[in-house]
């Protein structure tokens, strides 16, 4: 009977004889590592934009239409110093949080209904089909008639901007949970709310998080727009009102300072709050690149 032959090779010996060593791991240089960090790259972009702003505004030399960055920052610091900007921002954020959380609770109830009953699914689909394309701000005139000038109208509009985006994403997330995971959940004898909480919600978390982010962005925009339209409620204006008021006073650096505050708050929430949640959840679980 013929047999295959096996010849052993001494890999390490061959290498040693040639006086070489295979490089298995090479450390990257500090610059290369820094460039691989998205935060570093994005900071660089912001610095470039800031320099461009400053240079252009100085060439233009017209503070009534386009103040320089340094002027804007000076105003920003002054207005933060006298407390106006911070109280305005806080007023906005209070209303925003209220509207956001009411929206989230309603979205949660609606999706619960949608995954447990077929008529609930139909209801959610019909409502999102109707209201999702409708900019929430378009409801503001109506809200003003129903609820008058005040927080109630703002919250009503905000709920509309949050609810449909979050409900739509959460529901889509639930639907995309794999058949295998559902079977695993039932194998563990999980039913009803426990099944939703322990299997569906974590499995759909990437979509839910996307919904939360979109909802937040919608709410923030809607709020600033709404404040521009009717401004003060019970003597307390928000950031939108701050921008509007200062435009009327032709204090353009203050307008820019207000806009900058809107941007900064948006960036902070996106990068600190949502990025942190993302890092601790979906990235850690390998559910998102």
């Amino acid at each position, binding site marked *: 009977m013929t047999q295959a032959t096996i010849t052993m090779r001494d890999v390490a010996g061959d290498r040693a004889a040639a006086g070489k060593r295979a490089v298995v791991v090479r450390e990257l240089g500090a610059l290369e590592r820094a460039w691989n960090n998205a935060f570093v790259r994005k900071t660089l972009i912001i610095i470039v934009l800031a320099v461009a702003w400053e240079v252009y505004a100085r060439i233009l030399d017209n503070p009534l239409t386009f103040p320089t960055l340094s002027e804007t920052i000076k105003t920003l610091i002054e207005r933060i110093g006298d407390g106006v900007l911070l109280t305005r921002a806080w007023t906005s954020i209070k209303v925003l949080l209220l509207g956001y959380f009411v929206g989230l609770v309603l979205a949660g109830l609606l999706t619960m209904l949608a995954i447990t009953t077929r008529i609930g699914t139909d209801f959610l689909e019909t409502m999102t089909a109707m209201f999702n394309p409708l900019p929430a701000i378009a409801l503001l005139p109506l809200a003003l008639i129903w609820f008058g000038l005040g927080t109630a109208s703002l919250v009503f509009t905000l709920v509309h901007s949050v609810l449909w985006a979050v409900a739509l994403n959460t529901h889509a997330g639930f639907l995309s949970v794999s058949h*295998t995971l559902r079977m695993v959940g039932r*194998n563990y004898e*999980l039913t009803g709310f426990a099944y939703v909480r322990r299997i569906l919600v974590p499995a759909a978390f990437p979509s839910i998080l996307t919904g939360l982010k979109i909802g937040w962005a919608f709410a923030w925009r809607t709020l600033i727009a709404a404040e521009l339209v009717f401004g003060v409620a019970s003597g307390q204006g928000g950031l939108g009102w701050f921008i509007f008021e200062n435009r009327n006073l032709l204090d353009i650096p203050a307008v820019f300072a207000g806009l900058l505050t809107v941007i900064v708050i948006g960036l902070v929430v996106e990068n600190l709050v949502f990025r942190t949640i993302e890092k601790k959840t979906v990235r*850690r679980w390998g559910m998102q690149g």
Partner: protein
Amino acid sequence: MTHLLDVDGVTLRYKTPSSLITATDRVSFQVETGDRFVLLGPSGCGKSTLLKAVGGYLTPEEGEIRIKGRTVKRPGADRMMVFQEFDQLLPWKTVVENVMFPLSVARKLARREAEEKARAYIEKVNLTKFADSYTHTLSGGMKQRVAIARGMAMEPDILLMDEPFAALDALTRRHMQDELLRLWEDTRFTVLFVTHSIAEAIRIGNRILLLSPHPGQVKAEVNDVDRVSAENGEAAELEKRIHDLLFNDPHPETTV
């Protein structure tokens, strides 16, 4: 005498949007404690559907499935499933949390007790080093070992395995088959194993049920499979005989 698992004249049907398909037609078999019972057949013989029915995910249209005399009505932790898909592990839990999870939700064990048990079974499948890793960092074979550890840790009446090694590469598959046998030597659990590979059925099983397709019907039952030796060509001989039984059908209309 009550059998551990008694599948008694089971007919399974499922609906597609356009038709009603009969997956199995009056299939009967019995599994005893400590059996490594393999359901073997080509695709379309309803072996996976049958396993899902034992798992409680489908209700037989005819006949009955009993586990230790109790009729199977819904999924339950007395029949732990091991699926083919790698996504059967919960990605938001670490390896040890994955194994602990059914112990705490279905067995209602206290946290400490569940963790102790989970770590013991993770050691059995040689994954102690990865116990605190998230599952996306594991290879396919490692994920299947976690799924097996999770099933075994529950100490179910029967472990239901649905082609658990089919998505693995050939080398890993061989390795996993040996490992499953080693685990069985260790704890002598009862397992119902679905496969379409004759070689795998012979390596894994001590009893094999051959199913023919369209609709799934029992063709033959092979017992004492573990007595054949792989060395002297008996296994190869058995493999050939089973192959002929499954594919050289004297009735051509039932052949695929």
